């Protein structure tokens, strides 16, 4: 049964906003309840009988419980679209983990015994997959996840949250879909590539030019809206319309690519972060700057009806 009354977490990000707009454009959606940490008025959408906003800090267990058994129950919400993840790769620690993983885990627990919620859609990301030279560069949903113990918390949290939701699929009364989205090249979405491209000069490993797949806000939001309309359960890769080498990403963004010996890149980008305060971490991107990783979206096409349609708008 398609969702009619939807709770959207992570609503104050550009992606959250685009999802809300697309949901509100669908007359079958009766109500969208958006939540975020920012005060009311953070979203440029006026409250109405089809839209409301709640300021909630999902890092706090009490607020999560109050949300689900308060306003969510009162409004008869039947689906959760959970996409609230900490965006900064430079921050780590307990509070970050609380939002990335514990909020996801508890929202699932609460939703399972909730009187009105039937559908749970989790917006995961392609960052959960491991990318190395001897694994496929075309990544389907059975591709190995990045379970390297030495992986930064940014990765470990995403993998743990994703697996937490995956373990419920088929065992819970909820109909669960996990969407592993390609990287959305947009600000405030946690995109490492977006931050990487903020420099006029982009350093890349000498001798390597891997294929990347990037998704637009419009396509990422459409995939989530389609998942809410569908009853399909499982894990779905959500690729974007743009598949191109790293060098072309840099060129299309109007930046200058400077290939450099690989050992220099980590120290130089750490220096950049320390001096300019940027979010890009080379250690997060080391492997995918060497080896290709392109999402195979055939399952989402067959079962959710999702195919990428909206290419990125590159600087002219």
């Amino acid at each position, binding site marked *: 049964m398609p969702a009619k009354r939807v709770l959207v977490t992570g609503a104050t990000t550009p992606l959250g906003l685009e999802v809300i707009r697309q949901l509100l454009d669908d007359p079958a959606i009766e109500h969208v309840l958006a939540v975020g940490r920012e005060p009311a008025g953070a979203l440029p959408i006026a409250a109405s009988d089809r839209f409301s906003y709640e300021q909630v800090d999902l890092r706090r267990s009490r607020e999560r419980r109050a949300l689900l058994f308060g306003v969510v129950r009162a409004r008869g919400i039947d689906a959760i679209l959970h996409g609230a993840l900490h965006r900064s790769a430079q921050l780590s620690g307990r509070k970050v983990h609380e939002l990335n993983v514990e909020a996801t885990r508890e929202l699932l627990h609460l939703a399972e015994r909730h009187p009105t919620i039937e559908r749970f859609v989790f917006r995961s990301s392609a960052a959960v997959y491991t990318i190395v030279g001897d694994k496929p560069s075309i990544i389907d949903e059975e591709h190995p996840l990045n379970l390297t113990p030495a992986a930064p918390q940014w990765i470990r949290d995403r993998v743990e949250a994703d697996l937490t939701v995956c373990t419920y699929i088929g065992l819970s009364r909820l109909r669960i879909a996990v969407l592993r989205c390609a990287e959305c090249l947009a600000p405030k979405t946690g995109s490492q590539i977006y931050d990487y491209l903020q420099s006029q000069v982009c350093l890349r490993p000498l*001798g390597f030019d891997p294929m990347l797949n990037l998704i637009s806000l419009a396509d990422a939001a459409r995939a989530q809206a389609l998942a809410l309309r569908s009853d399909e359960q499982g894990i779905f890769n959500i690729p974007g319309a743009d598949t191109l080498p790293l060098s072309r990403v840099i060129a299309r963004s109007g930046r200058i690519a400077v290939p450099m010996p690989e050992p220099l890149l980590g120290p130089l980008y750490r220096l950049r972060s320390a001096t300019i305060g940027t979010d890009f971490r080379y250690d997060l991107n080391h492997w995918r700057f060497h080896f290709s990783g392109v999402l195979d979206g055939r399952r989402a096409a067959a079962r959710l009806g999702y195919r990428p349609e909206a290419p990125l708008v590159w600087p002219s």
Partner: protein
Amino acid sequence: MSRTPTLASRLAAHARARLPAPWRDQIDRLRYDDAGHGFDALGLHPDTIAVGAQALRWLYERYFRVVSHGIENIPAAGPAILASNHGGGLPFDGMMIYLDVLRNSAPPRVVRPILDHFVPGLPFVSTFFARVGSIGGSRGNVRYALEQGELLLVFPEGTEGIGKPIWKRYQLQEWRVGHAELAIRYRAPVVPVAVIGAEEQLPQIGRIEGVHVLGIPYLPILATPLPLPVRFHIHYGAPIDLPALYTAEDADDPEKVAAAAALVKEAVAGLIRRGLDEREGIFR
């Protein structure tokens, strides 16, 4: 496509302009699954194919003077696997099969060679190989390529084939069965191929084990510093329709897979015998 003329795009335009018309026409008519920016999802890029063809065609036309036999046996469309003997120290056999199919297949097709697992880790080489259509040897990529209807090239002898000493030339080494399993599972015919000449081009008289420069499995000891200008004869045999002989479920039966691989091996061995009988000398 990028509006920024990069060094690579200028190089590609220059190479394309210098290619003789028959080569250029073949590359212009190549069908590939453009993922949106002139590349396919595995990294193939026709402009780079033009660069590679322009850079290497003298090897094909002048140095090894390749003679093609039976190119019409390559299916015009759909998935297929070329299975060839392998030898000669350096993979000129793969390169010449690639150029021969590019130059002579009708309609033009591009061969997707399956690379050894260490190649994606080699700087520059990995990028160039990906752009001209090579595929990293992981199973997922091979499956994807077959499902997309690509023409794969495999050397079932693997590194034992290319590293065979000169006195074992044209003796097929341990014949791996992966190509037969893939052909059965993904319903692709196998075209047997014999490359005559390649196994004498760079005589190997020994090898140093345990030295793994850039992941390469051994260091060869070669009798000549450069490849000899032997003539290559490439023979394509009639396609072996393994999907007609086996069901997809048979791909899980090791005995049936081994029997299918033996069929292919025998076909390649037969082509080698014929090719050796027909040639008039290693330089002719």
